[in-house]
């Protein structure tokens, strides 16, 4: 199955973290109809990268937010993040 445009864009942006693994689940259908859904979709990102080693969850999420950047304002309403270091997988 090919990625939706938003999922493809997310993967493109996350590439700066040089991830060993990226899985993106589009949960948008589970939130259709609620107010925030008008702003964009709901996505769950599971990402494994060496960049997360030795960083706490807050710092890891900041890295992901920085990489995703402006996508938060167009097409994405919510992003659930699971950020793991390689040694935690």
């Amino acid at each position: 199955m090919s990625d939706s445009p938003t999922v493809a864009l997310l993967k493109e942006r996350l590439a700066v973290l040089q991830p060993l693994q990226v899985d993106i689940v589009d949960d948008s259908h589970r939130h259709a109809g609620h107010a925030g859904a008008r702003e964009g979709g709901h996505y769950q990102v599971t990402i494994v990268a060496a960049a997360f080693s030795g960083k706490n969850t807050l710092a890891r999420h900041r890295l992901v937010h920085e990489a995703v950047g402006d996508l938060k304002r167009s097409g994405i309403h919510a992003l659930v993040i699971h950020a793991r270091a390689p040694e935690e997988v």
Partner: protein
Amino acid sequence: MSDDIQQRIHATVTGNPVVLYMKGTPQFPQCGFSATAVQILKASGVASFASVNVLDDPEIRQGIKDYANWPTIPQLYIRGEFVGGCDIMREMYQAGELQKLLEGIIEA
């Protein structure tokens, strides 16, 4: 970015032991992630906490994102420190870290 808004936010997060910036109210959350954040706080044993409904004030809604340099809501503050959003609260709760952070202010 308005300094006045930033000062108001600073006064709120430092003037209350636990503050949740959320969409809606603890009784009537307007977003699933805000609802989950409220449930996690309650499950952590917090009897009462301050909450701010960002949907009431567009300046606060943007201002709180600037304050913590964090792009999403909900946002939890404990003793004036930004803790994180819904995912981080869940992870910390599951690890028992959130309960530890809230120790001593559960009665507040």
